[in-house]
């Protein structure tokens, strides 16, 4: 019974999602549709149909990588709210490497473009990381503001220096097809980016759980004073955890170009950096759970279009539901089994039993 309850507390992310979906059904009803019909269209379209599922995987790639980009600094107690801007810088660097580097064998060039993307996002996040570590400037504000700079920077480049000839809309030239990421499902857009995302999630999981690096990172997050005492270079950890987080977001941007769009568009990311925050918090910074949460959120996003076609609810309802998810997730953080009344009663009961046992031993005497 108690174990069951403890499990219920552990699954609080699931409860948060369910609560959000219930409240969201009110919004759908407000929009003039039947919630059950709308949800079944959404989830069937996102997970049960071949092309719908492929679209889910397409959207999962940036959401997963952005989620990891938020989760990594979160281990060190830092909030990276700048994944969106880092995605843009990653895409910019990757596109630059794809368009302007001399021709070389396809897969080497893909690797170089990936690295360029990671460097772009990483350098962009290095700025708030450096300012946080060495000047004590709040990383939340700096990463937030840098989103707007990053997004507009890319808009500037594709409207000016990188604008394709005769383009009616701000975008760059198309990259060579030898640089296109391989597809993982035939006859669909699902590309290799999501596989790389899952592999990186596993790598991060192992680093967090099994290496001294992961332990140091967690120590910096939980108790910086203790970390300093243990000889961990706290400032460098702070700076580098944000930079590496940014590199992951940069990869997300790179693969949007190499795997999906094949050009750099202005305003190409549909807020994937913010989805990354949602999944990282939902997963409590556990990389494997980030994968699951990213799959769910990507499903919401891809299913939203199908739902709009099927029952006519605007796709923005999904953004509202996403907002509800994160509000309920935030609320669920407050509910810990250890803090619950029942856990308190159990503790007291154990204490009483122990006290009684001790008393009866003392009564019996030595």
């Amino acid at each position: 019974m108690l174990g069951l309850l403890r499990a219920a507390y552990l699954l609080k992310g699931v409860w948060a999602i369910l609560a959000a979906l219930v409240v969201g059904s009110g919004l759908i009803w407000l929009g003039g549709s039947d919630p059950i019909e709308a949800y079944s269209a959404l989830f069937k379209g996102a997970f049960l149909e071949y092309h719908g599922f492929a679209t889910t995987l397409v959207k999962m790639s940036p959401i997963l990588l952005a989620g990891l980009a938020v989760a990594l600094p979160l281990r060190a107690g830092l909030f990276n709210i700048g994944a969106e801007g880092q995605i843009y810088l990653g895409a910019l660097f990757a596109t630059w490497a794809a368009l302007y580097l001399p021709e070389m064998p396809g897969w080497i060039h893909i690797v170089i473009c990936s690295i360029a993307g990671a460097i772009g996002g990483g350098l962009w996040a290095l700025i708030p990381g450096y300012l946080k570590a060495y000047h004590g400037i709040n990383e939340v504000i700096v990463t937030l503001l840098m989103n707007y700079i990053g997004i507009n920077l890319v808009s500037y480049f594709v409207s000016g220096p990188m604008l394709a000839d005769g383009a009616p809309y701000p975008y760059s030239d198309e990259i060579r097809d030898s640089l296109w990421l391989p597809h993982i499902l035939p006859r669909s857009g699902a590309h290799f980016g999501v596989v790389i995302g899952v592999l990186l999630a596993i790598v991060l999981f192992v680093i967090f759980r099994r290496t001294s690096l992961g332990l140091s990172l967690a120590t910096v997050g939980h108790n910086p004073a203790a970390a300093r005492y243990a000889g961990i270079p706290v400032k460098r950890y702070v700076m580098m955890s944000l930079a590496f987080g940014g590199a992951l977001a940069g990869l997300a941007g790179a693969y949007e170009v190499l795997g999906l769009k094949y050009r750099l568009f202005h305003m190409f990311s549909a807020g994937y950096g913010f989805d990354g925050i949602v999944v990282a918090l939902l997963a409590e910074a556990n990389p494997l759970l980030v994968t699951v949460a990213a799959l769910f959120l990507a499903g919401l996003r891809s299913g939203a279009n199908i739902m709009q076609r099927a029952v006519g609810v605007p796709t923005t309802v999904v953004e509202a539901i996403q907002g509800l998810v994160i509000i309920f997730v935030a609320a669920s953080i407050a509910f810990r089994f250890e803090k619950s009344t029942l856990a308190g009663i159990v503790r007291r009961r154990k204490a009483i039993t122990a006290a009684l046992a001790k008393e009866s031993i003392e009564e019996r005497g030595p």
Partner: protein
Amino acid sequence: MMDVFLDPTMLADFLATSLRLSVPIVFAALGGVLAERSGVYNIGLEGMMLAGAFGAAAGTFFTGSPFVGLVSGTLTGAMTAMILAVLAVSLGVTQIVAGIAINIFSIGITAFLSRIVFSGQANTMTLPGYKAFALPGLAAIPILGPILFHQDALVYLMYVTVPLLFLLMFRTPWGLSIRAVGENPRAADTAGISVARVRYMCVLGSGALAGLGGCYLVLAQVYLFSEHMSAGKGFIALAAIILGRWNPVGAFFACLLFGFFDALQLRLQFANPEVPYQAFIILPYAVSILALVGLVGKPTPPGAVGIPYEREGK
């Protein structure tokens, strides 16, 4: 470009624009000062401002009265702040997480509701709003008159709000309670002040002020609601709070600085049509970061900001 600063009429016009562009940031920053002084970090200012803008547009749309829009926008901001109050004060959730949640929620819900409420005409209609009028007497002051006293009603409201908030914070017993709760909640609690009540009031007031900032966007700047129209102004306000050292007057002047750079980038856009305009939009955001970096001396936030307060002996 330089002629703007040489010709007195053009300069006055430019500074009046700067002032108008800083108004939404000022209201949001005042809200942030109020919340942070009571010990609650309000990253959600952006979302509350956006909610306020939506509330203002919806209220005006249904009644045709900008004043009703002003009231409903302010209330919508406060209602959004209620989420932060419940999460951060009652439930003790990490305040940054709660604020982020509000921002994401607000972007989504306003986008969704605007489709329903304005049913597709959100970007084409023009709502009635507040127009500039000269304050008799004051507007005749040379140079300053046209800049400061030929504005709309909400700008005048701002002139009143800044000193009022300053007096409230530093010259009244309420202000003392607010600052006590923000510096040392345990001591305040011992002295018989209800930490939760003070924080609730301040967070709700914070949301109302940020909502007012959103009202200004709709009712005095663009006269319509568009998705994510707050465009990071709430985040610039966060920088202004630090720059103004958690003081309403200081924050006000920091916001004027950002308004100045916003007006400057608009000028640069018009003066250089051959350069993609995005190159200039970056300016106010970059200035905010640079201002934080260049800040002389280390700013000291209120002692208990960001820390949920939990009474002992539960």
